């Protein structure tokens, strides 16, 4: 029985990505939860460089709008990979997957 329980634990641990995302602002977690949503939901954040609106819908998570100067975070579109988090530098905002089901360890860009 103990062996069966341990085996189940291994299988769960080795399972693929859960699709969970984490949003941090200045290193503090402000959201941790599903990276998709059947009903579109918005998370409004006030950062050091202004307001940021994050959208989570059936396709995933993306920055819908930002008051930051370059809006590089908006241009990134939907979050696609654990190794390509959406980052808003002026706001110190990061949107990332918490785990990965990919066969890579990092992305050179």
């Amino acid at each position: 029985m103990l062996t069966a329980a341990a085996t189940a634990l291994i299988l769960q641990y080795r399972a693929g990505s859960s699709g969970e995302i984490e949003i941090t602002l200045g290193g503090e977690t402000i959201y941790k939860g599903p990276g998709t949503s059947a009903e579109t939901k918005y998370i409004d954040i006030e950062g050091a460089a202004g307001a940021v609106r994050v959208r989570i819908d059936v396709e995933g998570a993306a920055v819908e709008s930002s008051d930051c100067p370059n809006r590089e975070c908006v241009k990134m579109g939907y979050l696609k990979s654990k190794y390509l988090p959406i980052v808003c530098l002026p706001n110190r905002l990061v949107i990332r997957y918490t785990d990965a089901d990919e066969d890579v360890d990092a992305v050179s860009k």
Partner: protein
Amino acid sequence: MNISSTAKHTLKGAGALAMCLALIILITGCSSADKKAEESLFAMDTYMTFTAYGKNADDALKDAKEIITSCENLWSVTKADSEISRLNAAGELPLSKDTRDILAAALYAREYTGGCFDISVYPLVEAWGFTNGNYRVPDETEISELLKRVGEGKLSIEGDKAILARGSRLDLGGIAKGFVGDMVIKRFKDSGISSALISLGGNIHALGSKPDGSKWKIAIQSPYDQSYLGVLSVSDKCVITSGIYERNFTAPDGTLYGHIISPFDGRPVSNDLCSVTVVCDEGRLGDALSTALFVMGGSKAVEFWKVHEGFELILLCTDGTLYVTQGVYGSFEPRNNTAVTNVCEIKR
């Protein structure tokens, strides 16, 4: 030897418990040699992530953050009291060892690349708006004037002092991440860390191999979207990519201008390259080369590789050809990508 049934049950229970504990260790990887530590940091105008394995991994990552923060305070042109800002303002300044070392590396890179990498190009980077996001197209007169402040002899180092030519100013953005990445890897090694992976805004430094002995798998991002051109398997290497896709602007006439400025004509580089990846042992070289080779263009970049040792290349051209040099061709796995029409191996 007679063993009572109670003792047999006890032994069986102990054996099962031992097996489960072994399985738990397998699952969690609790050996100190594989202890994993992770950190992230905003610094040098980018987002950085660190992963290290080993019993000293936590302390090593704390040291890494301190090194990077300290170097940023010395080198950032956006900090008025950094050594580089004060040098730019005063024209000459005694410098700390770390700053003298990176300036020496930058001077070497300039000579090594025939001037294609040049930290004195800063006044032009500023004029085009890449320092503050106020993008503009300078006219030819302004570009010509600013070009007089760029190039050979604009920076010299005498003893502990750096001296700039009149009107010249420096920006270490093209080499700082590579240089500081080398410093971090050295600190890891000194701490007994033999397996680590750091990403400094997409500049990858891989120390050793993964704890299971397999190579690190580093994807190369497409310049057009978040897909991958391919995946490289490496150990003890830096993988550094330059492209114009991340920092660029579109002028009113529709022209797209990238952030890599040619030290020769003062204009954003526009040639047959859209992505340059350098694979090498040291980040300082890879960082400088990834910019310099972009300035050179595709055919000159290949010629340069053929006559220099110590690095390998993956070049994506605007016609969709992906060139991979022979030293990494066997460890590069291309991915189906609309940006790539064919993959060619380049041999010496």
